């Protein structure tokens, strides 16, 4: 949280006007969705499936180092594509408009230990609604880290660089635990809650399937290459985990991103909600390949403004959104991946230590609006 509210110069009327301009951008994309977009996602899905199939095929001979290298690289990319550009975005409902039951948020399942429906709840409903609101958005540090000066410091935070590293390596399990709200639900009274138990069972089943596939069946099918294939699938999962963790850290943790207090979202208008998404997210700059491999979460700001627009449209939307940032004199937080990852990690280290309370509190919109 910065000491100065970077949106203080905007009047209530300006914020609503900003909201209307963003609505117009959204309407334009929705009106233009069509055959080309549908062809795009089908092509990506088809490419991902072929890549995964070929990579796993090559890994059957993983005892030969070139095969191991090629297969592991291919499988890592395939898993990243599955989780990022395909899974994350389909589960957001970005492709529901096609009315294809095979590419729909209610039917999709992904290569991830957290079952799609649980992830959709914690991610789509909670994180995207309460983005960066302390105490409401658990993505702020995933309940294990302190990522803002205003979050209370506890001695456990001393270890947060380590927790964050472990979380990065086993990110999909971190997400599953997080979607289950494991921390809270392990409380004695809540542990027996039948709803929680059913969800925990579902996660157990999903983990079992994923582990069987990657660590038992595929290595067994590889025969004499059993151990090397095991190492390959483990590596591919590790690469996917660290990659997605890094991309997601860049979305909300880098310096310059704002967080908000609970009371600031009381009676929030559409314009204010948009503004919170704009100030609470950060982008990653880079090539088309970079955008693709991040599942277009490199356009995190645009994604948070319009979570259900097709991901292939974020690049064109970004140009218009950035112009609005300039028009309203707001800071568009963006940078290359290494810089943003470094910035996020620096924050994790810095906030592992206690800090003095900042002098000025989080922007309090109610007061602001009264003043305006």
């Amino acid at each position, binding site marked *: 949280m910065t000491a100065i509210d970077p949106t203080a110069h905007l009047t209530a009327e300006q914020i609503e006007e900003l909201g209307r301009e963003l609505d117009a951008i959204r309407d334009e994309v929705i009106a233009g*969705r*069509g*055959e*080309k*977009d*549908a*062809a795009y996602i089908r092509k990506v899905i*088809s490419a991902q*499936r*072929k890549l995964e*199939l070929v990579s*796993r095929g090559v890994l059957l001979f993983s005892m030969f180092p070139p095969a191991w290298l090629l297969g592991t690289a291919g499988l890592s990319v395939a898993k990243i594509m599955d989780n990022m550009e395909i899974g994350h975005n389909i589960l957001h*409902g970005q492709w*529901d*408009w*096609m*009315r*294809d*039951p*095979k590419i*729909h948020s*209610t*039917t999709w*399942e*992904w*290569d991830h230990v957290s079952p799609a429906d649980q992830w959709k709840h914690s991610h789509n409903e909670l994180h995207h609604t309460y983005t960066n609101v302390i105490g409401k958005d658990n993505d702020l540090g995933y309940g294990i880290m302190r990522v803002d000066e205003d979050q209370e410091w506890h001695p456990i935070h001393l270890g947060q660089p380590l927790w964050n590293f472990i979380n990065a390596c086993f990110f999909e399990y971190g997400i599953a635990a997080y979607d289950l709200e494991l921390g809270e639900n392990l409380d004695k009274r809540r542990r027996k809650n039948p709803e929680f138990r059913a969800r925990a069972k579902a996660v157990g089943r*999903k983990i079992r*399937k*994923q582990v*069987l*596939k990657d660590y038992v*069946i*595929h290595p067994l*099918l590889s025969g004499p290459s059993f151990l090397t294939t095991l190492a390959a699938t483990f590596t591919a999962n590790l690469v996917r985990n660290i990659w997605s963790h890094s991309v997601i850290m860049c979305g909300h943790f880098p310096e310059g991103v704002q967080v908000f207090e609970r009371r600031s979202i009381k009676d929030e208008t559409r314009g204010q909600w948009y503004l919170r998404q704009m100030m609470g997210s950060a982008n990653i700059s880079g090539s088309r390949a970079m955008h693709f491999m991040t599942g277009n979460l490199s356009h995190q700001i645009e994604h948070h403004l319009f979570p*259900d627009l097709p991901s292939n449209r974020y690049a064109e939307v970004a140009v218009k959104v950035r112009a609005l940032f300039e028009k309203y004199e707001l800071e568009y937080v963006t940078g290359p991946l290494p810089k943003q990852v470094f910035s996020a990690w620096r924050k994790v280290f810095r906030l592992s230590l206690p800090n003095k309370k900042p002098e000025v509190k989080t922007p309090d919109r109610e007061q602001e609006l009264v003043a305006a």
Partner: protein
Amino acid sequence: MSTALRSRAWKLLEMVTTPLLPSDYLDLVSPLRAGADLRGRIEAVHPETDDAATVVIRPGRGWRGHTAGQYVRIGVDVDGVRMWRAYSLTSPTNRRDGRVTITVKAIPDGKVSNHLVRRAKPGTLIQLDQPTGDFVLPQAKPAKVLYLTAGSGITPVMGMLRDTEFDDVVMVHCAPRPQDVIFRNELHDLVADKKLRLTEVHSATDGMLDVARLDELVPDWAERETWACGPAGLLDAAEEHWTEHGVQERLHTERFRPGVVVAGDGGEVTFSATGKAVDADGATPLLDVGEEAGVLMPSGCRMGICFGCVTPLKAGAVRDLRTGEITEAEPGVLIQTCVSAAAGPCDIDR
């Protein structure tokens, strides 16, 4: 390979492909194979008139074949959006190459019909359902037959004409102008071969067909087993006429559009499985309401005949747009979303 072994091998495959299914991979290379979801590939589109075309489809291996006069629900991606419609099959049932045809007339503002007639490309994959419908010929051949059709209502009848020959067949067909008559050349060939007696009524010059004129056009109409297909006005009049003469059991009709008579009050519609709620008026079919809200709604003919859209009504009440009849939620109550509108708040299990 024994079935047990095969099913075990399949289970193993499923463990490898999870969270996808082996079929998701097979679909990439062989979408028309046996065991796949039923699909078809458009092989050709032949124009019939200015606004009608015949689409030649190679159905997937799972196609069970049709009976002359039946229709098929097809799912076509128009501007990237999957849309389902029902069309009569116009090919004979014994076509050697196994292809089937539907003949589509582009209706004003019809998204799917215009797409199929004007923009569909050979090679395109479409979704199919098994053929269905009871507008079919009986097992025992009737001695005398009358086909009474108008506009695109000729399509199921063409399927019958191409499929089964009768000793005595009369057809009365109504279209605006001669050039609007779909299959005109083929019909005239049948006439030349003395396989059909045909009366064309051109409504642009002669006015709409008045069923009372049948006495003059087909004096023995009441003795004929009759299949009628066309606009609601024609069918309503025919049903009345046949009933008046006490021969209604000889009349078989197929309706392409529902007659909408009543629109009532709307209400908030909840799609509880998807977790969405929207306000709907009392005139918009719940199918449209759901689709607009991004809910995955099954759909078909969109006119209340194919039951491809039936969905459980969990709470509240809906009104049948054709009859005005109110249906209230009870366990097990299914509604046709394409012809039902909200009659107050309701909860649809989608």
